[in-house]
């Protein structure tokens, strides 16, 4: 179901249709080539030795026995990855994470790597490397890390804070947002609810492990085939870390089996390049699932306090949140993002949020789909739900009374432009799910969510083929179907059919720099650049038609895929089709193309609201999702099926996190569940069909009104599920995931107290 919130909408021919995706056949027939599906002649197998300790000083590493093993072509340690960071602390942290330099900072931290002729040899070589560790005390819990002054996770930890302030040493950064006077606001409140929440760490859970093939030549050039969300960014970072010229490293992005933010950071790629450089041969490095869990970025574990004051009419008078996010051993922006998004859905007179990044002995936190926002929303939306219960008010009505609108000052600073939260809430209100009666042990939860969009550097090229078809080359990696969406955009602008346009992802030598597919920017930015590139190509096409007709170009217009002559003098000429003009291109000036190199601006933002119906088994604590609805503003859905897919996928990831997904660490600081058996993402039978409603409040900053939609769908689910369980059981849930043991324990505690 689509809801067009504006009556004045553009008419589209291709945009808004649902054709078959262009990468679909390759994927369902197994022909699509992912990170591990590429091979080069003479290729070696790379494997990584990882720390079994959560925190340990590396006293020495003896690689001599491994190097002496027949079939081993290279063994590397941090010594083979010298510091080229030139004082850039962030870059040095990336290097340190790829290969521990002085200390192993988490269970799974890479300490050495080998390249050998086959996997068995490489595995044997790993066993021959002797690492002398001095085990150090560790801390894996966010609140414990804040208390700890003795246990410093990272020696740089003091660099960002003033020691005079006596800030705990594991604080990486503190960010504050807000406006007004919260104390005055609380003083005016009729009701104040204050609660603390905890969220365990979750992983993106992409099905494809990290994999790459790296080849560095003696002349300083290199090739990297890799599964990534941003091959251009990978190129820059890898070249910088390896001390290579950026333009001499060519990076090709493979098909990608999910990323969700986890493939925006480099992990094994610099290691593979260093192995190849040392061995003088190409190296393939593929992570096991265990390595993915132990050694690549999960999201932050978090601990959050929220205090909200309201009037008896349900208007928020004051709101405060203190949000503590684990960032692993390295710096992060996670506290900041949590603090920015926590109250972004609401127009609040007095608001203050403080976000803190806390260093802990867990893997480096990576972006995970709207990073930090889901747990912030869990805390804030849970308190709002409790307020609605205490005011005996419909929780949807409470949201209506506080929702941000066009011109509202956001809780994190800027003033919102054209936004669609109210339209989203209206669509929720009219949805039939709200009228389905609930039985015993069942509950309904509602929650809202917000996420930013980003624009950034974007390049596209459109080439017209001799037969009048078009190849569109884009540089934003297609994670969720964006190639097909871009074909729709190019077809729309050119006025030809979707199946006449083929979109491919160019490698780093083919296009200018493209920022990574992150921040819900892929479709927004690349569609903008595509429209520009097609307009430029149309300019060329008009010139060629003018030449063919021997009339002034100003008398040629482009309509419905054809050049048409206008004016009294030429208006009776038959139109020239794209194919006819393309065929004559060799005689009229050569190949016909259009290009666009832009910094995409004019981003919108996307709001959503979710409704979750659950049934809780009071004897086992198990939760069954009965019904689930996602309503979100897409601005303009270019390919509605993929927008719905994003809505459903985000909801499912959020539901998994809400119910079962968590990193379980032992007292020894080791990860206990580094596999899909005990890190429980949902299976199909766990879920109902996720219902979706696309609301379209066009983004005025984009020619078609597009908003990025990929991340917002994971923001509300933790809260929506928690509110549903809390209402089903009568006990407020404050700790995700709400696994059966945790829910049963909460029910038992409530009986006792």
């Amino acid at each position, binding site marked *: 179901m689509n809801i067009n919130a504006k009556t004045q909408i553009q008419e589209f021919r291709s945009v808004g249709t649902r054709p078959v995706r262009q990468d679909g056949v390759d994927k369902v027939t197994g022909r699509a080539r992912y990170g591990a599906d590429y091979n080069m002649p003479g290729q070696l197998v790379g494997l990584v030795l990882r720390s079994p300790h959560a925190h340990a000083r590396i006293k020495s590493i003896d690689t001599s026995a491994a190097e002496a093993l027949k079939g081993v072509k290279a063994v590397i340690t941090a010594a083979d990855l010298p510091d080229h960071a030139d004082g850039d602390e962030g870059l040095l942290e990336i290097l340190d994470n790829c290969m521990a330099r002085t200390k192993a900072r988490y269970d799974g931290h890479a300490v050495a790597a080998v390249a050998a002729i086959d996997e068995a040899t490489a595995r044997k070589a790993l066993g021959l490397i002797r690492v002398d560790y001095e085990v150090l005390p560790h801390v894996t819990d966010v609140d414990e890390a804040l208390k700890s002054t003795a246990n410093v996770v990272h020696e740089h930890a003091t660099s960002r804070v003033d020691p005079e302030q006596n800030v705990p040493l594991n604080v990486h950064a503190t960010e504050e947002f807000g406006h007004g006077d919260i104390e005055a606001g609380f003083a005016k409140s009729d009701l104040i609810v204050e609660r603390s929440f905890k969220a365990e760490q979750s992983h993106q859970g992409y099905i494809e492990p990290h994999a790459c093939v790296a080849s560095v030549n003696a002349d300083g050039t290199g090739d990297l085939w890799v599964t990534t969300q941003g091959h251009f960014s990978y190129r820059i970072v890898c070249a910088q870390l390896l001390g290579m010229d950026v333009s001499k490293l060519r990076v090709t992005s493979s098909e990608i089996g999910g990323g969700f933010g986890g493939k925006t950071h480099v992990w094994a790629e610099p290691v593979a390049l260093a192995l190849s450089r040392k061995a003088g041969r190409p190296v393939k490095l593929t992570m096991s699932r265990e390595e993915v869990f132990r050694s690549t970025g999960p999201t932050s574990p978090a601990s959050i306090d929220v205090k909200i004051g309201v009037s008896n009419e349900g208007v928020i008078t004051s709101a405060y949140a203190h949000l503590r996010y684990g960032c692993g051993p390295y710096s992060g922006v996670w506290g900041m993002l949590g603090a920015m998004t926590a109250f972004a859905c609401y127009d609040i007179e007095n608001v203050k949020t403080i976000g803190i990044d806390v260093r802990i002995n867990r893997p480096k936190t990576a972006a995970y789909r709207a990073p930090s926002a889901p747990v912030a929303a869990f805390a804030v939306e849970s308190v709002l739900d409790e307020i609605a219960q205490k005011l005996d008010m419909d929780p949807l009505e409470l949201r209506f009374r506080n929702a941000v609108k066009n011109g509202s000052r956001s809780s994190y600073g800027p003033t919102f432009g054209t936004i669609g939260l109210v339209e989203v809430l209206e669509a929720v209100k009219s949805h039939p799910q709200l009228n389905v009666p609930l039985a015993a042990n069942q509950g309904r939860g509602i929650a809202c969510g917000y996420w930013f969009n980003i624009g950034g550097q974007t390049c596209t090229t459109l080439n017209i083929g001799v037969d009048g078809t078009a190849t569109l080359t884009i540089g934003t990696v297609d994670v969720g179907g964006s190639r097909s969406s871009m074909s729709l955009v190019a077809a729309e602008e050119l006025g030809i059919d979707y199946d006449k346009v083929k979109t491919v992802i160019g490698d780093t030598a083919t296009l200018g720099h493209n920022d990574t597919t992150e921040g819900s920017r892929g479709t927004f930015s690349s569609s903008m650049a595509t429209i520009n590139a097609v307009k430029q190509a149309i300019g060329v096409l008009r010139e060629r038609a003018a030449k063919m007709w021997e009339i002034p170009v100003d008398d040629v217009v482009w309509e419905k895929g054809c050049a048409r002559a206008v004016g009294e003098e030429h208006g009776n000429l038959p139109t020239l089709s794209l194919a006819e003009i393309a065929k004559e291109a060799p005689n009229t000036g050569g190949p016909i193309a259009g290009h666009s190199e832009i910094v995409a601006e004019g981003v919108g933002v996307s709001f959503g609201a979710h409704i979750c119906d659950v049934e809780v088994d009071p*004897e*086992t604590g198990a939760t069954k999702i009965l019904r689930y609805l996602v309503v979100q503003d897409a601005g303009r859905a270019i390919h509605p099926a993929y927008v719905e897919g994003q809505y459903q996928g985000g909801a499912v990831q959020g539901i998994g996190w809400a119910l079962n997904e968590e990193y379980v660490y032992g007292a020894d600081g080791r990860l*206990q569940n580094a596999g899909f058996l005990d890190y429980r993402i949902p299976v199909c039978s766990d879920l109902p069909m996720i219902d979706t409603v696309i609301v379209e409040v066009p983004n005025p900053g984009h020619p078609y009104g597009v908003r990025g939609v990929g991340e917002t769908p994971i923001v509300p689910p933790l809260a929506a599920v928690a509110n549903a369980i809390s209402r089903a059981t009568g006990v407020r849930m404050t700790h995700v995931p709400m*696994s*059966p*043991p945790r829910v049963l*324990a909460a029910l038992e505690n409530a009986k006792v107290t």
Partner: protein
Amino acid sequence: MHYSRPNSVAEAVNLLGGNTGNAFILAGGSDLLVRMKGGFVEPSLIVDIKAIAELRQIRATDKGFWIGAAVTCAELGESEMLRAAWPGVVEAANLIGSKQVQGRCTIAGNLCNASPAADSVPALVAAGARVHIVGPNGSRVTAVEDVPLSPGKTSLAPGEMVAAIELDERPAHASDAYIRFIPRTEMDIAVASAGINLTLDADGTIKTARVALGAVAPTVLRVDEAAEALVGTKLETAALERLAETCSAAARPIDDKRGTIAYRKSVVGVLAKRTAELAYKRARANS
């Protein structure tokens, strides 16, 4: 590593008897291959028993049913006679892994893997199943609960292998059931489980009962006291409560990533009640 695929039990026994290294039997491979890929075991000999015709059969015997060690769990699910007689055993076997795994895995393998959380084992223990073991010194028959000794360890002597699992024939007014708890709906490992087998009088009074619990002790636990709580009752509320209490009391679980001690002790009682109700309903319907 040597791989062999014998065509007879005698040949398999010979191979195993002649091996001095680390020999493994390959039936479905759903545990063995995972352990090999994970680098946990490096077999010197793998004896694949899937080409041994008699181990691939489900037969009715004069005493009941003979299930060859290489019969897959999916095949158990397709056997109408087993489904009718031992629905609890079949439903347990059909909970293991995923549909794909069930097309490969076997209950003999599930037993010999000696996991306390094995799904088919509590059902087999409740059913009073017997295990046919062959080895260098001939064959022997033992109770299913005597096979697992501790996690990963069995009572099989070197060179011995399970040839078949035998189940009794099913009298009237009797049936069984198996229920496990997992946080998901499938593709998971039991946090706690219960298998119960009941024989009733024509009027519905329980004559005999066997209760077995999974994932709450180092091996599958047969709880005779819980069974006694049911005998002579018609599964009234008091009997169910007594069943739950005795099961919770008998459970000796551990805290781990899949559940806490308190959670497992509590839930295993709930599962026992639900399993007893299901077995009782089936037994009443089996006239």
